[in-house]
């Protein structure tokens, strides 16, 4: 007969004694009918964590919630989970049962892409916008090349097209490093990232790591459907294609290429035929904004599910192009876009941080839009340099050579996070926490 101890040991979670989950990035996939979720739980050393769902919904968990979410996502038997938690915390079992049950329900909803709204329905605690202080960004943009087959007059790129580029192996090691840093989302950008032949390989490697992958492109190479299929096979999750106008002439003039529009639209059609999440982006400038309605009509006809709009970025050629709109001019355009996309069941994403006193995206029900550079996202240049965002061309270190701490704690990063690069008039504004004083690049341009 077996002794009591051996019998009782059977009752414990197999192979596990109560312990906190190790800090790090945990990746889960969940599929339920039409709903597919990629879930990342990033646990910090202090056991706080963030839960990211499809790299778009981000919630913050305290240590207890972290452990519970971990156990839920690990599909731990509820009885074992409750015993586990009870073994770690000073708490009555009845409270653990109650809290864990509620937590499990919430996590189940949160990880559903079409689950209950965390604010409306789950009634989560709401914390101030941009109040989180993560240890690393949630998203890393990878500008794998600055080469481009377009030549946009408003392009924010401030580097030469011939900027030195890393090898495939070096990019793979970068992908591994940023995964180890807990960054679950990468976006390949440029320049024009599709000009790198190894793009599918890099995507495949990132996906193998567990990262969600995106591509920001002018879409011209996507006119080649076999290339699109290569990207699909590699596991690419989402694509953003820049289309400046429904009108080929306007688009081609803005990107300074006579063949661009046809290839871009062909590429857009190709990706829309895939299972990838597709959106477009249009920079509203003087040449194209008068025809925004027709452009939106065109995108709706194509079946674009998500439409992105933004304003001029004051970097690179954007500093001199002089075709940017005043922020006050944005209101009717965004009102129009909101009405049209809502009526058509499309999603509208407005990107550009603005001065809320001049254009308030919250009042426009576009959401809180502020600068997230060096906080929620950063960018790695073709040579491995890290910059605060893909338009802010001041290196804060090199991802292959420097410690992450030296990069993340760089003076420029701190200034951006602390809203130090703002206009004087914004410094005492009550809206600063949400507004952030608009895009720092714009503030710097205006102060010159």
């Amino acid at each position, binding site marked *: 007969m077996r002794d*009591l101890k051996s019998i009782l040991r059977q009752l414990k979670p197999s192979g596990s004694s109560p312990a906190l989950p190790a800090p790090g990035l945990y990746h889960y996939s969940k599929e339920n009918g039409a709903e*597919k979720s990629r879930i990342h739980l990033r646990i910090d050393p202090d056991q706080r964590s963030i839960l990211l769902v499809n*790299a*778009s919904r981000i919630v913050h968990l305290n240590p207890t919630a972290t452990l*519970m979410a971990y156990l839920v996502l690990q599909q731990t038997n509820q009885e074992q989970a409750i015993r586990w938690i009870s073994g770690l915390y000073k708490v009555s079992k009845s409270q653990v049962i109650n809290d864990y049950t509620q937590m499990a329900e919430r996590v189940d909803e949160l990880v559903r892409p079409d689950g*209950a709204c965390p604010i409306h329905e789950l009634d989560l605690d709401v914390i101030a916008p941009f109040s989180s202080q993560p240890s690393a960004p949630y998203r890393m943009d990878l500008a794998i090349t600055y080469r481009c087959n377009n030549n946009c007059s408003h392009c924010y790129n401030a580097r030469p097209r011939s900027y030195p580029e890393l090898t495939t192996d070096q990019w793979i090691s970068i992908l591994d490093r940023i995964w180890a840093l807990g960054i679950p989302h990468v976006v390949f950008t440029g320049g024009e990232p599709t000009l790198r032949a190894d793009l599918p390989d890099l995507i495949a490697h990132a996906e193998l790591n567990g990262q969600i992958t995106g591509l920001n492109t002018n879409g011209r190479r996507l006119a080649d459907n076999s290339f699109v299929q290569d990207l699909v096979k590699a596991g690419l999750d989402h694509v953003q294609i820049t289309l400046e106008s429904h009108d080929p002439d306007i688009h081609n003039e803005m990107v300074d290429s006579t063949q661009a529009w046809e290839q871009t639209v062909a590429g857009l059609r190709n990706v829309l035929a895939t299972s990838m*999440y597709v959106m477009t982006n249009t920079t509203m400038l003087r040449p194209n904004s008068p025809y925004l309605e027709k452009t939106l009509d065109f995108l709706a006809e194509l079946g674009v599910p*998500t439409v992105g709009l933004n304003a001029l970025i004051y970097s690179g050629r954007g500093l001199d192009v002089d075709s940017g709109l005043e922020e006050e001019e944005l209101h009717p355009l965004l009102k129009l876009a909101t009405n049209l996309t809502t009526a058509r069941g499309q999603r509208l994403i407005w990107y550009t941080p603005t001065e809320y006193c001049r254009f308030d995206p919250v009042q426009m029900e576009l959401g809180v839009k502020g600068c997230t550079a060096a906080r929620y996202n950063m960018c790695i240049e073709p040579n491995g340099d890290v910059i605060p965002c893909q338009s802010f061309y001041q290196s804060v270190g090199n991802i292959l050579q420097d410690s992450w701490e030296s990069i993340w704690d760089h003076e420029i990063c701190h200034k951006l996070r602390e809203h130090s690069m703002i206009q004087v008039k914004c410094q005492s504004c009550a809206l600063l926490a949400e507004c952030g004083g608009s895009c720092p690049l714009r503030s710097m341009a205006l102060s010159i």
Partner: protein
Amino acid sequence: MRRIILAVVIVLLVFSVTPLPIFAQDYIFSVPQMVVDAYWNEDGSLSLEYVFTFENNASGHPIDFVDVALPNGTYDINSITAFVDGNQVYDISAEDFLGEGNYGVAIGTAPYVIPRGGLGVVQVRIGKITNVLHTASEGENYASAVFRPAYFTTATGSTDMTVTFHLPPGVQSEEPRYFASPSGFPDTPESDFDSDGRIFYRWHNPNANSSTSYEFGASFPKSYVPESSIVTFNVNDVLSKIRLESFIPIICIASFAGLIGWGIYNENRKKMKYLPPKISIEGHGIKRGLTAVEAATLLEEPLDKIMTMILFSVIKKGAAEVTTRDPLELKMLQPIPEDLNSFEKDFLHAFTETGAIRSKELRDMVVALVRSISEKMKGFSRRETIDYYREITRRAWAQVEAADTPEVKSKKYEEVMEWTMLDRNYDDRTRDVFRNQPVFVPVWWGHYNPTIGGSSFPKTTAAPSGSAGAPSIPGADFAASVVTGVQSFSSKVVGNISDFTSRVTSVTNPAPKYTSSSRSGGSRGGGGSSCACACACAGCACACAGGGR
């Protein structure tokens, strides 16, 4: 005394609740002496008396808590007392119990914490535990009592351990039987009568190991305890719980459905402090700037009250006046104020119609109001916003109630009247506040209550400054007028308010929460939620997500 030693292997029916305690390393102690008295009472219950002598190591953590696990939840917590070195302590809590197992109590030793290097005696008495007896193997006429006292897996040194079973009063000397003594204890326990004349069995081992779990058992005729106090044991339940392997004889399980009681000195006090799980999301907190009517809608106030608030609002703004109160009819005033909200315009338009059309337009107005609130709340915390408006209501009443004179009170009330109506008890509070004093009604009140001008109310005092020409009326009449306004609206305008509300909610109520069918299909990674307010979440990485090329 008839003594039968049962050489039977005891299967511990521990109901899966005895995972061995895991001890934190910085509690370093020994238990030089432990005395346990188990009283098997005539009502079938068990009383336990523990006396632990703890010797704390000089480098050990102060002994600040002792957890005593219990075999089930049917104990009387009020019967539990505890002493440390003879000093009674009162920190006895089931909620704070951290030991393994489902049931137990935590004894806080403060302020008599046993210090490092100190010696301390902890006495714990559990007066009543029920459902502790089972049918014994000797036959259905015997009750089995099995007990396992505290054990301490990391305690050092030996323990002078004494365990005494006091059998129920009346048990005769030839009747009881004791089970096989645990290892290290004499084969035959001491037996005699205690001071109460009860037969006792006493097991003593001066060199017991305090980290070992010892088990003691006895049986006695059932007739000495109520039949109902003996637990019927379900083999299948236990099998399913403890997953015993097939070679364990079921007969043993059935025969020794015993009780395991144990005390665990709980070094698990080194467990982490528990904070309830908290999930937060970046976004807006409070939605400020709602009108009182909108706030009332958010707070899900009754619709008749909300419509009465709209009525007051349009009258206050000078957009309409009541021509008759029964039935309620309005006259639109010119010019139409520019600051009318859409729901106020819709409300006024409804009163240009009559009968069913008016009722339908009022329903449509409310539906539109509810939907507009839903839109306005996107990205904002509903809970915080509700709290915010509840606080506004509380302050509004506080201002009115704090006013010293009828004049000031009337003025304050006019200023904040719409907010006071958000109070669920606004009717009672209105009556209470104005019961014994006059009210200087605001000028616009005459447009709501035409009788004011002609005045069916006796004028009692002069109007306060700022209310020139305004009459004063008895407070009770004024309060009644406000309160009955709502009731009138319900009965005279929309008829049955429940039916009216149903017609509204049948349109406004969304699909039940959490149903996927109410939302669009899924998306692949990187997409984002279809909920419009998701994009209001600032933490969403799509904020400045790299457009602009």
